[in-house]
């Protein structure tokens, strides 16, 4: 069932102006549009309640939008949900393992629901158990699995039908750092080696940054900005340069020293012993800054350069920090 998309060049996921209001008046989506290139990893990044899960539910045919259209692997999710179901895999936000069944039974049933049977199903099941290090636990009830093991079984179930498009709804929420790192490795592998198109939602900035070729920041049911993480960060124009001075120095003296650098250094601010500034390229700016300070006899204790983070991007487009937004929406 693997293979290229319906026609080369057309997006694997094409979403146009989805609007969804739940009974009770909660506006989950207020016009969401995006496209996901075949074979890429796309992240919907946003705080809890931003509309990420609702988008996934619509694209996986569980839910229907009030208006708007969406195609997955070239198939219209509203007109032909059955066909969509055959070519997608989905790992929901919360584990969906059946606690009263063994891992092997759950995986086998999942395959049977997609119409697989016999030796091909058996070998697919044992391959997946092997791959997710569940072979030893295969005949144990899922009830006895750790959170990480249940998550792995979730992903294995999502892959049973060799989907073309995989949806991962907050795949690492609640996992310990080690299991999370393992999951990231698996997601990269699926994307690079198997050419799967992956749409993942996350409220971890780091996760989106590391995994996704393209990130869409979702806030209150809308996409506020989208693009490759590097591009989004580049739009902030420059890296942050922090210089720790050996002793407190008046701002005037520091600015005089740096005047020779001209426009390449912006937003210079001195706070006691700390000097903050922005530069197009931090790495190029550092030697110049050090040279300029040295020529004025200002002694430097340490220098750090920070690339702009997605958090900075989030702040710029939504007007609030990601952490605040997440806490606000959780309440």
């Amino acid at each position, binding site marked *: 069932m693997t293979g290229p998309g319906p026609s080369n060049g057309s997006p694997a996921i094409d979403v146009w102006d989805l609007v969804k209001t*739940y009974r009770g008046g909660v506006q989950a989506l207020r016009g969401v549009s995006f496209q996901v290139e075949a074979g890429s990893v796309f992240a919907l990044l946003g705080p809890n309640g931003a509309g990420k899960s609702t988008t996934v539910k619509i694209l996986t045919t569980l839910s229907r939008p009030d208006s708007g259209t969406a195609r997955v692997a070239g198939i219209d999710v509203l007109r032909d949900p059955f066909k969509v179901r055959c070519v997608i895999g989905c790992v929901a936000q919360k584990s969906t393992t059946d606690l009263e069944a063994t891992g092997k039974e759950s995986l086998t049933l999942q395959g049977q629901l997609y119409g697989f049977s016999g030796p091909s199903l058996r070998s697919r099941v044992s391959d997946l158990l092997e791959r997710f290090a569940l072979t030893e636990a295969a005949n144990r009830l899922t009830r006895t699995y750790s959170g990480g093991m249940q998550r792995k079984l979730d992903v294995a179930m999502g892959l049973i039908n060799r989907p073309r498009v995989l949806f991962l709804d907050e795949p690492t929420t609640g996992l310990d750092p080690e299991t999370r790192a393992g999951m990231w490795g698996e997601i990269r592998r699926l994307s690079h080696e198997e050419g799967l198109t992956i749409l993942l939602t996350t409220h971890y900035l780091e996760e989106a940054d590391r995994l996704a070729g393209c990130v869409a920041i979702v806030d209150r049911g809308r996409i506020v900005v989208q693009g490759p993480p590097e591009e989004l960060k580049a739009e902030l124009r420059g890296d942050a340069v922090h210089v720790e001075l050996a002793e407190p120095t008046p701002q005037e003296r520091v600015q005089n020293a740096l005047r020779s650098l001209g426009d390449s250094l912006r937003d210079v601010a001195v706070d006691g012993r700390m000097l903050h500034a922005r530069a197009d390229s931090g790495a190029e700016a550092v030697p110049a800054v050090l040279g300029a300070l040295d020529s004025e006899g200002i002694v430097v204790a340490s220098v750090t350069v920070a690339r702009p983070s997605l958090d900075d991007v989030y702040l710029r487009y939504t007007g609030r920090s990601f952490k605040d937004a997440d806490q606000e929406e959780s309440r």
Partner: protein
Amino acid sequence: MTTMVVQGSHLMVRLLRAMLRQPYYLAVSLTQPIIWLLLFGQLFKNVTEIPGFATSSYIDFLTPGVVVMTAMYSNGWSGMNYVVDIERGVLDRFLISPVRRESLIGGQLAYNAVLTLVQSFIIIALGLIAGARFHGGPLVMALFIVAVLLLGMAFSSFSDAMGLLLRQEASVVAVVNFVVLPLSFLSTVFMPAGLLPHWIRVVARFNPVNWAVEVGRQTLTGNVDWTLVGSHLGYLAALALALAWLATRAFRSYQRSV
């Protein structure tokens, strides 16, 4: 059709396995009927002396009624499986796979039918041990079991629909408690029609529980009323299919709310 049977049987196996891992559930589900059968059988022993009572032994009279009541309870809890599956996210996982909605309900109904069959056999065996005698012969007994299964299917479908629509365990408990007992008392489970107040007799005519019980009573007599058996089976089949169809539709409503 084949797809539906195949998918449905896989889903049935899932439920049967889970049940067999907790066999005490089956045991618990039988304690209540055993108490009715043995305790009520003794308690009301002498009601058969009331003029107009059809049989000479109350345990004879009671056994088919207890089989029907057990089926009602057992199938009435069916929706609980959906409540658990919804909470666990298992149902959503099934709904975005290419499984057919008819298969989902079908698997649930098949599982309940197996459970009902086992329970019915055990109760009939207990009745026999307690002294009940069935003079109607094997055919009418088999048709009675079919009637019980159809009634069970109706209850199970109704309970499933409630589980899907209301999504709370309490709602399923309410279905069982506010439907099963009243319907039992508004039927000839405990008393023959001739001894019921007029209004209950009227209500009982339209009570599906009574349709099944009356087929059950035919297993006691050597003189079977086949017309009654046939018509009652027809009513029960129509009701069961209608409710099963409704339960299938309940998925749409559920999906609208997620």
